[in-house]
């Protein structure tokens, strides 16, 4: 996507705040007491599996659903009572929803026509935004003549050109093939940063969420499970659900032996480690916890090697070569651990007995009760 005057930072963009928003369909609680805040100009992602309420939340923000309770604020305005077309939000749909009976130019210019923008100005702005998303020269095509990626860009252009206060995107990349998806992902992020516009993005794809967002809102069964920056969500999940949903993780059961300010002594599999205490109430001795360890934070050693702060021994069950890493499944006391060896090289893989070494500062604790 090229720069242009359309790439100038947007001054009308706004923050978004949801306070205790609830939406029911019959007896189904689709959105359950959801609160979160998106600062002005931030890229926020609603992340979760299908049925978690993320799309319903987005559609409630857009005004397509009435919330049963709670407030939605865009900037300083409470927008609950505003119809969808007065909210200052524009939406990019999963299936793009391009108007099939209008050319690309008419599709993109539609919102400006509704606003009553004079046709000369409309034309300039449409051409500008089309060039901006890399579709200059395709204005006279029909939607049916475009590839999936091009249609997606038209959908984005059509929403951007009306200069919404917030752009809402509902799984906009999910209908594209993997390579194109990744390319458009970077383009979207670059676009958002250049415009400084507030984006709210819905996806079930954790890679998208982590790579695009300033703020990630993880949802489960209509509720917010955790809100945080991508690395907070990844390294310091508050619940085993979040830990499990984002990436691959080893969740090892342990028991608190000793709780002090800032650190906790934890026993697991016959080992004892001192770890940083998680947020929340102090863990009392005897409390059940989970050690949350990412596979790439572990290292394999020959069994006889020593010198690591913490190491458990096990047997390699199988391994898989994934190019950038070698993934091992190692059985420790009848339980499988996943260990990733980054940049494995062409050396022959580990076999038989191995030691799994880990650094205490890479182990995150999750209190069992909170999951």
């Amino acid at each position, binding site marked *: 996507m090229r720069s242009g005057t359309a790439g100038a930072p947007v001054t009308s963009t706004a923050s978004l705040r949801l306070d205790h928003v609830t939406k029911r369909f019959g007896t189904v609680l689709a959105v359950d007491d959801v609160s979160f805040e998106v600062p002005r100009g931030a890229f926020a992602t609603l992340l979760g599996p299908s049925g978690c309420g993320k799309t319903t939340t987005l559609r409630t923000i857009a005004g397509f659903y009435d919330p049963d309770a709670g407030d939605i604020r865009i900037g300083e305005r409470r927008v609950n009572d505003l119809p*969808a077309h007065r909210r200052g939000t524009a939406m990019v749909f999963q299936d793009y*929803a391009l108007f099939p*009976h209008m050319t690309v130019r008419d599709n993109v210019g539609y919102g400006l026509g509704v606003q009553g923008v004079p046709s000369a100005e409309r034309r300039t702005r449409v051409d500008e935004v089309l060039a901006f998303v890399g579709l200059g020269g395709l204005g006279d095509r029909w939607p049916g003549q475009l590839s999936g990626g091009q249609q997606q860009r038209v959908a984005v252009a059509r*929403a951007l050109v009306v200069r919404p206060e917030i752009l809402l995107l509902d799984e906009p990349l999910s209908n594209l093939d993997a390579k194109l998806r990744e390319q458009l992902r970077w383009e979207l992020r670059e676009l958002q940063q250049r415009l400084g516009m507030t984006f709210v993005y819905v996806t079930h794809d954790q890679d998208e969420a982590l790579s695009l967002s300033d703020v990630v809102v993880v949802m489960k069964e209509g509720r917010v499970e955790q809100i945080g920056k991508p690395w907070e969500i990844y390294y310091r999940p508050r619940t085993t659900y979040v830990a499990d949903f984002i990436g691959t993780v080893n969740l090892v059961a342990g028991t608190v032996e000793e709780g002090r300010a800032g650190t906790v002594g934890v026993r697991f599999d016959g080992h004892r480690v001192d770890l940083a205490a998680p947020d929340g109430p102090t863990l009392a001795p005897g409390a059940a916890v989970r050690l949350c360890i990412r596979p790439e934070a572990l290292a394999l050693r020959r069994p006889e090697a020593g010198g690591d702060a913490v190491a458990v021994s096990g047997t390699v069950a199988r391994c898989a070569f994934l190019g950038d890493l070698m993934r091992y499944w190692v059985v420790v006391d009848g339980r499988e651990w996943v260990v990733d060896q980054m940049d494995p090289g062409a050396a022959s893989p580990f076999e038989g007995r191995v030691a799994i070494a880990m650094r205490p500062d890479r182990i995150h604790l999750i209190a069992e009760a909170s999951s």
Partner: protein
Amino acid sequence: MAGGGGSVSLRREPSLLIALLAVAGLVLAFIVYPQIQVVLVPGGDGYLSFFEHGNWQRPLQNSILVTALSTTTAVTLGFVYAYAMVYSDMAWKPFFRLVGILPLLSPPFVVAAAYILLFGPRGIISYGVFGQTLNVLGLYGVWGVQTIAFFPFAYQLIADVLSRSDARMEQAARNLGASTWDVFRTVTLPLTRPGLGAAILTTAIYVLEDFGNPALIGGLFTVLPTQAYGLISGFADFTGAAAVSTILLVLALALYLAKVRLDGGRSYVTVSGRASSMPRPPVPPAVSVACFVACLALAGIILLVYGSLVVSALTRAFPTNLAFTTTHFEYLSAHSLALQNTLVYGLAAASVSAVLAVLAGFLVQRGTWSGRRALDFLLIMPAAIPGLFFGLGYVVAFNQPWLEWLDRGALIVIALVFWNIPIGYQAAVAGLRQIDRSIDEAATSLGASSLRGFRDVVLPMLRGSLQVGFTTTFVRAVTTLSLVIFLFTPQTTVATVTIFQLVNDINWGGATAFTVADVGMAIVVLVVLAAIGGRRFVALGAARA
């Protein structure tokens, strides 16, 4: 992710609420209110004394009898024609298809007129060939004429059902070793039985409601529609007419409800100019030959009907004096008002009905408000209401002193709009189901109100539904007699009424010239519309008299 909810929120969009209230108000005023008025006219005592003393048993029996007979024969012939068109490899299919469409564009009672010309007391066949003066009036005449008049309708309905049956299953059955007959008996028939049942019941409704044919050749054989007409035109007995019409309505509603149970209320078929592209298993050559002979005979009868009308229109005194003349067409200028009214009313009603139907379809299909099921039912109901009853309702409800200012022509247009609204409405609902809601929502999220989005985005995408509503309403408007027979005034007369009056005056030349002009006008309008629309099809609901 979750379903339910809706894109349309009445509370936040007053304009949408106003549109909905307007549509609901129109439906109540022009569909519900007049019909209730007819049913209420006789009052409790009126019904009691009418059922005790009135002449209704004989017409009721006659109606049931002739409906049963004519439906059986019409459906049988229609089935043969449809089977031949869908399954056989016979020659001349495009010709047969064209001939099959012709009767849909003309008032069904032209068959009665042709029948009198051919077989009447001075008929060219009965008297001219055999020298006989037959009494053709009565049950057998009505039966025969309705069979010929309605088998093309049955053909369209049945062909639609058969062509929607899955050819792949028939191919599979043939592949497993079944013969043509086995396939038909064990696969096609069981799969199409509900659709065929609905087609039979729909044909029965047409026959039951038919007014023109029994009026022209029924003679002393009165059926419910002619009895109702006779009571008003002869005795100004509105009470009796309303009671008879109510009996007719009850019968039609019973047939209609049975049909809805079978097919879910589909009320139109798409008559396309092309054959189905789906290949079907071949039938034996002998079957194709038999089909060809049967279709040739049936098409011959249709052409005989229209041919005799054209010849009559162009000859001095058919059938005794066959000298060529154009004098009968002078009636066109004498009665040009009727033709002009037909065209104006037809186009006006078709435009309003098509747009209103699509708007109503949008409000009902996209809405989430309670009560939309009731509105849905009311919008489909006119499909079950006999034209005679519908027209009578407008007379009773709106021929009131306080409505003197209302133009009678406007009243006819309004009646046509609402009598025909079910077809466009159902086409719109079917069309809207094909358009994802995200299309409406995209317009809304770009700043358009729901109604603005409807106008800019949904309406253009429903062009096909609009065309179905428009053409069907137009065709039915120019071919209906029963709806307008109570509503017309000298200033607002229409072509079908004029034809009916000319036949009653035994002015055959004038009547046939007028018929040719009326049908010709309908064809010209449809051809022009097809050319403007840029599509090769003419979408029609099966028209009714």
